[in-house]
């Protein structure tokens, strides 16, 4: 394991450096800690077993995010027949309401909006990069961004109205 180097970083260092990014993607996607943990580990396992030829560190980060999203989608696809009780119990991701933190609001959005908004606001990717990561058209990403923002406004507006 120590022999593997990614731009001067060992595998362990890569895991520790990008654990927050990969973990956040998995949590945002699955809204479940248990499921997110499986996808989190599978993402790094793939890096360890079949590391592609990365161009730079950004490439490595984008690859990890892409693999994490794929693992989440795969997990959802394989378990969509089952309704886990975790969604309604302690294992579910829950963030306390804090107006300045958008995380709790994103969890109320649909997956397609939440993922795009997180990558845009959380990870700092632009539209083109998000389109490449999600393998979607840029216009589609823009549409998702626009509709997601409208929903967030409604959430906040509704909160304020109350």
């Amino acid at each position, binding site marked *: 394991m120590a022999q593997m180097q990614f731009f001067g970083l060992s595998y362990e260092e890569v*895991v520790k450096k990008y654990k*927050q990014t990969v*973990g956040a993607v998995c949590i945002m996607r699955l809204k479940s800690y248990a499921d997110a*943990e499986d996808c989190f*580990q599978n993402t*790094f396992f793939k890096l360890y077993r079949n590391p592609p030829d990365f161009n730079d560190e950004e490439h490595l980060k984008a690859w990890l995010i892409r693999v994490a999203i794929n693992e989440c989608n795969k997990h959802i696809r394989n378990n969509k027949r089952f309704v886990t009780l975790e969604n309604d119990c302690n294992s579910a991701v829950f963030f306390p309401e804090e107006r300045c*933190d958008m*995380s709790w609001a994103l969890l109320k959005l649909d997956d397609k909006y939440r993922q795009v908004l997180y990558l845009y606001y959380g990870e700092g990717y632009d539209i083109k990069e998000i389109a490449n990561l999600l393998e979607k058209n840029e216009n589609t990403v823009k549409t998702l961004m626009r509709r997601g*923002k409208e929903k*967030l406004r409604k959430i906040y507006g509704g909160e304020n109205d109350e």
Partner: protein
Amino acid sequence: MSEFNFDKLKNHEIPDSWVSGALNVPPQTEKEPIIYPNFTKTLAFVATLVVVCALSVTLFFLTQKGDILPKEPTIPTTESFETQTVTPTYNSSDETKKVTDETTSTQTEDPQDEETQADETIKSEPTEEKTEKETSKPTQSQTQKPTQNPSSKPNGDKTPSNPDSNNPAGKPNSSKPSLNPEHPEDAPVSTEDIDGPSLEPDSYLSFSAIVDKSKLNGSNTVYFSIRSNDMEDMWTESEPQKFPAQISHTSGNNAILKFYPVPNELVPKSGNYIYCFYNSKGEVIFADVKYIVV
């Protein structure tokens, strides 16, 4: 929206168990490669199997019908030989002796012997001689069985060149009487009698017959006529061609006739038959043809 931040999410503490789990990469178990059947190969195999089965079934049914298997070579039998056209080699002197011998010894017909005799003759005679002997030697194209041809009609148009030339002298041989005539004298010859035995191949050369001696008017010569099936237009002719025959010997009231071969130029063709017997006066007499000798 920039006023909002993702600190809660981005700074959310990732449990150490996640990291340790990611660092403890389980050894990758060597999975046996799953060999998926190649669709193309499977399809080709199934198609081949179907074709082979279809051909097998077809071949089976064709074999049952016997349409496809080569026929076994047919072994020539006596019957097949009988249909061949064979020209026998004829020796008048030998035949004369044979007729004499058989007249005295055999009085019963034996078709099997005749068939065997015919087979032997056919086997010994090459077919190639057929054409060249048509003009000089007797020809034959059918079996030699002395069967009567009821459908045939008497017909005679041949002109005798010299009947006496082929009629060697034969003296009647009177001996002990043993046979009794069963037929009326000068009775009109029945159709069967008229038609007589067919002069089949190998059979017209000589033959013997028994006639009532009293019908011969003291003459030792009996005539017989030959008709041909393929000469029906001559059927109404009044005077058929007559060939002489000599009495070999007598037995009581019966005379054993010995007929000598017809001259070559008058050799009757296939389908000819003995039409009638006549005495020296030209009267029709009955003759019981016992057998015909080659």
